[in-house]
């Protein structure tokens, strides 16, 4: 395929407080082998040479694992490819002449910091509320003392694969953080190591999710559809059960 010329409509916002707006840019010579972020690099190189401010967007690993990249591409968090983070999206999925709209995650609990970059520290505070086992370095028993059925370990691993990107929140009509929170609660609920603090964990993490201003889950399943790690909404069902148990039976 010959190189493409694309029109990008990008959300520009100076800082947290300033209002933002869309600005259009043309990018030429986009190769089909480029990743989406490499295409964005080409744009930024152009802007730097023209003495304009670069478009800020978060990214780091560019391998779909750190959870840093976060763009809404043509209305869909991480773009149209199923099970793929923005950084793993390739330009071969686009056509010459396309107009691509690029926005930041939009959610009250994820305020925009600049352009396409948002503040996701609310996720860290949810983990802080209970996404751990209370074990100090040096205090652990021999690892073979704990047996975990393979199927439980696998399902826990499915949940633990969450990269904390926040696409689930960005896709949800209620801006709910349920999929993210459920993935962590579920991982521990499935493992023997998570049992001791099971109720406290569910109660506190769910409370923190509310306190951060995320919405409720009303089963739209948009989160699962955009999740780059294909985390299943069955984990949300498990979280709801865990939460219910925590509320009904005190520790």
């Amino acid at each position, binding site marked *: 395929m010959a190189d493409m010329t694309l029109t990008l409509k990008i959300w520009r916002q100076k800082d947290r407080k300033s209002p933002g707006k869309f600005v259009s840019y043309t990018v030429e010579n986009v190769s089909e082998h480029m990743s989406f972020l490499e295409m964005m690099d080409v744009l930024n190189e152009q802007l730097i040479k023209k003495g304009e401010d670069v478009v*800020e967007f978060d990214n780091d690993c560019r391998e779909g694992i750190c959870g840093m990249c976060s763009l809404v591409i043509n209305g869909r968090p991480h773009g149209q490819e199923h099970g793929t983070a923005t950084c793993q999206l390739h330009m071969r999925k686009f056509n010459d002449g396309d107009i691509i709209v690029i926005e930041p995650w939009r959610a009250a609990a994820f305020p925009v910091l600049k352009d396409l970059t948002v503040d996701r520290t609310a996720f860290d505070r949810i983990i802080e509320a209970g996404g751990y086992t209370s074990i100090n370095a040096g205090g652990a028993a021999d690892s073979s003392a704990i047996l975990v059925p393979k199927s439980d370990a696998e399902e826990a691993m499915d949940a633990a694969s969450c990269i904390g990107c926040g696409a689930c929140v960005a896709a949800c009509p209620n801006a709910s953080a349920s999929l993210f929170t459920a993935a962590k609660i579920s991982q521990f609920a499935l493992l023997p190591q998570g049992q001791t603090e099971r109720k406290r964990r569910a109660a506190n993490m769910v409370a923190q999710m509310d306190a951060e201003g995320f919405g409720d889950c009303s089963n739209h399943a948009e989160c699962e559809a955009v999740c780059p790690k294909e985390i299943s909404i069955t984990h949300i069902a498990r979280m709801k059960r865990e939460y219910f148990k925590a509320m009904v039976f005190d520790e």
Partner: protein
Amino acid sequence: MKLDSKIPEGPLAEKWDKHKFDLKLVNPANKRKYSVIVVGTGLAGASAASSLAELGYNVKNICIQDSPRRAHSIAAQGGINAAKNYPNDGDSIWRLFYDTIKGGDYRSREANVYRLAQVSNNIIDQGVAQGIPFAREYGGLLDNRSFGGAQVSRTFYARGQTGQQLLLGAYSSLMRQVAKKQVELITRSEMLDLILVDGKARGITTRNLITGEIETHMADAVAICTGGYGNAYFLSTNAKNSNATAAWRCYKRGALFANPCFTQIHPTCIPFSGEYQSKLTLMSESLRNDGRVWVPKKQGDNRAPNDIPEDERDYYLEERYPSFGNLVPRDVASRNAKDVVDDGRGVGPSNVAVYLDFADSINRLGENVIREKYGNLFDMYERIIDENPYKTPMMIYPAVHYTMGGLWVDYNLMSNVPGLFVLGEANFSDHGANRLGASALMQGLADGYFVIPYTIGDYLASNSFDKIESSHEACQESIALVNDKMDKLLAIKGEKTSTEFHRELGKLMWEYVGMARDEAGLKKAIKEIPKLREEFWQNVTVSSDKDLMNKDLEFAGRIADFLEIGELMARDALDRNESCGGHFRLESQTDEGEAKRKDDEYAYVSAWEYKGDDKKPALHKEELTFENVELTQRSYK
């Protein structure tokens, strides 16, 4: 300068226990009176920050990303070693120690490596207790796989996401301490200088990456856990934010930089495809368990791989190294790939790749088994290359991956600057001239969970600390220095972007300080890099806002440092006229073309001291002594 490695006396196996007993302790009630800054939240930083906080120290933990969970460690795929010997295949602490020393081509300290092997088992225990979903067998026990450079299966893993799971484990412990207010977490913040007071490390200067504000943070000790400098090559498997800046600033404040030329070129990466490329992607080495590496026997054979009959394929690793086959250590695998490509037998669109073929394993084990083991890696490959590796062999080629060199530290992980500790990939400590697969995760976590909690106490208990305010002249001098560098960068307003300079530096480094090095090439690099650096300082253009989020400014500062460290890497490579591990000098090879060490001349750690911007650095040598292993020429035949 006399380098004292502080290796304890006594038999190898007893050194660490004896040392722990001899170290001074801070009594529990006094720990809260001490403060420690931990820079970095990767495996080394997160494990150190949480463990120190658990003990009761006040910890400040700083990272570049928006969350500690996103540190580069998250990307590690294959696994972590430990000497548990669960498969009963003959592993032991001694064997892990021995393999690591040998794999490092006898350029690391026996005592450090032995300690690493000793604590390896505790790491797995800790991870399991944290709820890390390691791979299990049907009986519920932990599963193991094998990795390059070892003949036992000692690698623990969580699918192809072991780094992610270990880091999330460390992160969860860290967040528990943040909740207890024992750790103050400062994210989106970059360390740009080290602050010394009376010769001791007492703080750091940072830039708030959201507001641009320059801030100082003071403490009684500083631990640098900022990862490696592989991005000096521009293209590497490292994350985009991985950088040398924190370590380099420490070097310029007097910390010695050890073995800078020891870099690891990983054999199994997705090949380079074009100028626009921003990074290279690793395909985990674990793939070599089930994949067979080959190229066509004929030069310039452009047939599709599946059209090349069996007897026209050269399975060169199996052929040349019958006992290790596809599982030879990384440096050996990489060099052999370069050899066959240089011989005109490379494959793929650029002819700079070799095949990694799973057809036999799929026939033997079934596609499902292969999918279960490596599914996410195969998916990643398909996304990038747009070919199905279950049907067509993968194309791979070596890429810069890891830096064994780093800030010099003694047995306590303290640099020559008192109070400056260095952990994880940022130090030089355990891997010698070549790191074995699955050993970086082990080392980072060993340093953070099980070494520094003991050794830092000894330092704190042995020294007294006055309170330092940010008005102190050392702080003010550091702030001025940091501001000055940024102002200079912004004032140039030249023609080229910093990425363009970075790419040029990368080409010089890959060409002359890459997989095969020689005197003429290294001298050329030592001449060309300063020229490029000079041009950078005259002709770079940087996006202008200092008081806002500005990634271009962040990167320009880091590239300025890469332009300095690149030269030191070349100098070190020139000094070391022997081949060892990942450092291959064309002048020093065996008749069969294997790396030839010169133990009489080079059995030392080179530790470089900064002498000024326009002065040559001074070389100090820490002689390595081997009392427990015999130095042999490595053979994986």
